[in-house]
Each structure stands twice: as C-alpha cells, then as structure tokens.
C-alpha cells in the first residue's frame, strides 16, 4: 500500500459483462477494484480481454450485466462529464476548430461565451497547443490531435479521466513524448486517470498501479504497485525488472488464450 493513497473515488463491485449473441460472450467475469483519488491506474491485459469494455462501463457507455460501478459513492447510470474519455482514434469533431472542440463540454454548462473561451484557451495552453486554436483537427498531427482531445476532456473538469489506448496510434517517439507530457499535466491537475494500454512499458512509465487482467473473460490477475519515483528512467534496472515481471505475467495469459483457442 502506498502512503499517498487517500480517498477511494471509484468502486467497482462484482462487475460482470456478457455480450448477447450465440453463444453469448462473457467479457468481464467478476471484477472488484478500488481506484484512489489522484492516482494513475493503468490497465493492461491480452488483446481482446475486455479492458476497453471495463473502461466503457466506467464511462457509462456500456451497461454491466451485473455488479456496479460507483463514482464518488454514486452508481454510474450512464455517461457524464464527470468521467470524460479520451479515445484512441481521437474522436475530435472534424467540423469544429480546436477551440471549438475544447469548448464543447463547456458550452453545455451554464457559462458565458467569455468564460467558455477563457477556459478553453487555458486548457489549450496546458496541453501546449496555443496558436492552433483556429485550426481544424485534420490540419494537425496525430500527437497534436491527441493533445487537443486531452484538453477537451480536461476542460470538462471531470473527477476522473478515462483514457482508452490514447497513444496507441502514435509513432514511438511521439508516444514516449506524450507519456511525459501526460505526467506533466497530471502534476498540474492531479486528476485521477484510468489508462488502458496494451503497451507494458507505457504502463510502467506512467502508472502508479498496474492492473493486469486475465485473458477473456477478464478477471484481475494481479495488481502491481509501481513505487519508482517520477520521472522514471526507462533503462534503469528497476524499471526493466518491473517491465519484465508484467510482461511475463501477460505472456502466461497470452499462452492461455492461444492454447484454449479463444
């Protein structure tokens, strides 16, 4: 247990998710998890194991078959801006400028036009996109689009930021750089972040804790506390050891998937 752990923000209780079909597919088979306020929790697991489904249930985009998710003590009934999400494919609105995208969530609150623009610009500055306010998403690079998506989510001032493989579509250098940027932004905002990734190095680099899921149906295989100080050195022996541990744990699950033909 890390000393920094304070309040529990998200409680996941006996969560199960089955997708209808013939035969029905069980994606999540009993997950219990507490997420602490202010932590970066990474979720890794073999591909197709249901980690995105877990995130989507927290977001309210999917309904659990049984069990529940509580955020701030309240059961999640549907999507809401207290749980803003950043998607792998950015999902920026192509008909809105960067400013317009970041302002989207703010427009839905009772704010004046000046407050909206002021706040949006503040978050655009935070992610380092000043000067690009009037550009359209397709005029930006992948890394910049993902910064804009991050600013858009943060501008809603959510209690929790859900990130679904946000850097998965970026090239390796941009990806490493964005991981550093995310940590800088976290330093400034101290947001609770749930971060789904299939990239173990990424999880070890940014995570305070790493939840390893089993192959489908997803259960929690283990939770790794990452006690290394930040910023982390990707080449230090401790970092590499942690990475190896998580990778081996994952490999077991991959093999299980492979042999069972799932």
């Amino acid at each position, binding site marked *: 247990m890390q000393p920094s752990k304070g309040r529990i923000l998200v409680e996941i209780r006996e969560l199960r998710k089955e997708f209808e079909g013939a035969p029905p597919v069980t994606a999540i088979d009993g997950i219990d998890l507490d997420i602490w306020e202010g932590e970066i929790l990474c979720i890794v697991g073999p591909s197709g194991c249901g980690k995105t489904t877990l995130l989507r249930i927290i977001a*309210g985009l999917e309904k659990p078959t049984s069990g529940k998710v509580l955020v701030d003590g309240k059961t999640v009934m549907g999507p809401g801006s207290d749980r803003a999400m950043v998607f792998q494919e950015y*999902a920026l*609105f192509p008909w809105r400028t960067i400013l317009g995208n970041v302002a989207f*969530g703010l427009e839905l609150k009772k704010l004046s036009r000046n407050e909206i623009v002021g706040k949006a610009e503040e978050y655009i500055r935070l992610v380092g996109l000043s000067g690009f306010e009037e550009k359209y998403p397709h005029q930006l690079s992948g890394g910049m689009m993902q910064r804009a998506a991050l600013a858009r989510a943060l501008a809603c001032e959510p209690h929790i930021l859900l990130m679904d493989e946000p850097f998965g579509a970026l090239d390796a250098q941009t990806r490493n750089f964005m991981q550093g940027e995310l940590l800088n932004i976290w330093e400034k905002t101290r947001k609770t972040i749930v971060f789904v990734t299939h990239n173990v190095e990424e999880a070890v680099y940014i995570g305070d804790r790493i939840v390893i899921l089993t192959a489908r149906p997803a259960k929690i295989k283990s939770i790794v506390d990452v006690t290394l100080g930040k910023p982390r050195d990707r080449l230090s022996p401790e970092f590499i050891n942690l990475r190896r541990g998580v990778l081996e744990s994952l490999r077991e699950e991959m093999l299980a998937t492979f042999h069972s033909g799932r």
Partner: protein
Amino acid sequence: MGKDTVYTLLSIPLFLLCWELFYHVFVGNPLLLAPPSKVLPTFAELAAGLNPRFFMPLDMAYSLFHYALGFSLAFLAGFSLGVLVGWFRLADKISYPVVELIRPIPPIAWIPIAILLLKLTHTAAAFIIFIGSVFPVLLNTQNGVKSVERKFIEAAMTLGATNSLVLLRKVIIPSSMGSVITGARVGSGIAWMCVVAAELFGVAPYGLGYQIEMARLYHSPEIVISYMLAIGVLGLLLDRGYKLTERKLLSWRIGLVAT
C-alpha cells in the same frame, strides 16, 4: 492563356455555330425553329424588358417566387423528416413504404390533383415544385444522420451531451451537414426544372414556364428559346449560389476531401 482555357472559350461559339448551320441546312423555317443569330438579339431585348407582351424580368420574378416558395417548404419538410427518420428507427419503419411508393411518381403526374385541390394558384405551382424536390432533401438528410460516426456521439456523451436534443443539435446535425447540402443542391436543381412544368398549366399570367407555352402559341420559336435560355442561366446561377454556400458552411472540410 493555356490550351485548356482556349478550348473552354471555344466551347460556346462552336456550339452556336453548329446550331446556326443546323438551322439553315435542315430547318430553314422561322415558324419552327430560330437560329442563334435571331435568338441572341431577341433574348437581349426580352431580358432588358423591352417587349411589353413578353416582359421577361417579371416572368423571372414570378418563377423565382414559385421556386422559392416550393423549395423552401420542401427543404424544411425534407430536412425535419430526414432527421426524424434518420434518428428514430421506428419513424423510418413507419414511413419507409409510403415514401418509397410516392417517390417514383413524377411531379407532373401531380398536376391534376394540384389544380383540383389548390386551383390555379401560386400554391399549386409551389406544390408541384415541392413534390419534385422534397425527396432528395429527405433521403440525403436521412443518410447523413444515419452515417454519423458512433465515436462522435460517444465522445459527446462523455463530455456531458447526454440529452438527445443536445446531441441532435451539436453532433448529429453538424456532422450530417455535408449530406444535407448535397440533398439541397440536388433538390434545388429538380425544383427549378419543376418550375416550368408547374407554370405550364397557367397558375399565373407570368412566369418563365408559362411564357414558353405562350410563345409557342404565337409561333415565335426565338422567344421560346430565349425563355429556355433564361431558365438555363438562372438555374446555373442558383446552383453556383449553393456551391458557394456549401463551400462556406463546409469550410472545415477543405484539405480533408479531394475537391
């Protein structure tokens, strides 16, 4: 001046020359057809409003009025219904058979009903134009709404747009704007073509379509063709107008699409 420009500039004179030759070689009767050498001066005279019997500026105003009335109603109805049937599956299921049955009936086939129900009024003309142009608007809007990407709706929902009216206004309509404008452009083109049909049966003593028929009774092909020319020119201008609007409303797509 490039080679292409030369060809473009040659296009119309060449066409006029062929027409002139065709007239002299094959027709030669001024009661049946007029050559461009006769049509062009007639057109200039009519467009300037110098012929009191065929006062073209007023005819243009009447036709544009019929077009505007019919097409604006068609746009409003087509757009609202398109959003409705695009978004609510039930509305689509209920309306689909009726729409598909009525859609193939040409606007001209509605003329008798229009006259019986609405008499010889502007509304009757607008009705014919409405019938002709409502379906392209409706179907394109529906298509646009149906093809809104799920990720945009989900993103909007996690940003707090949980109410379906807000989603409609902020995500679904803006993201289907491209299709809506395509529908409007196609619809507008058909609406303009329907103007002639709608005016032929004499809803008013003016109008481009009405005068074409009058000029035929007067055995003045040069006037008939002049009015045809007026319809072509105004139709072209209308389409250019839509193109400009499209470019303005969809400026975000510059660089995203090929053209």
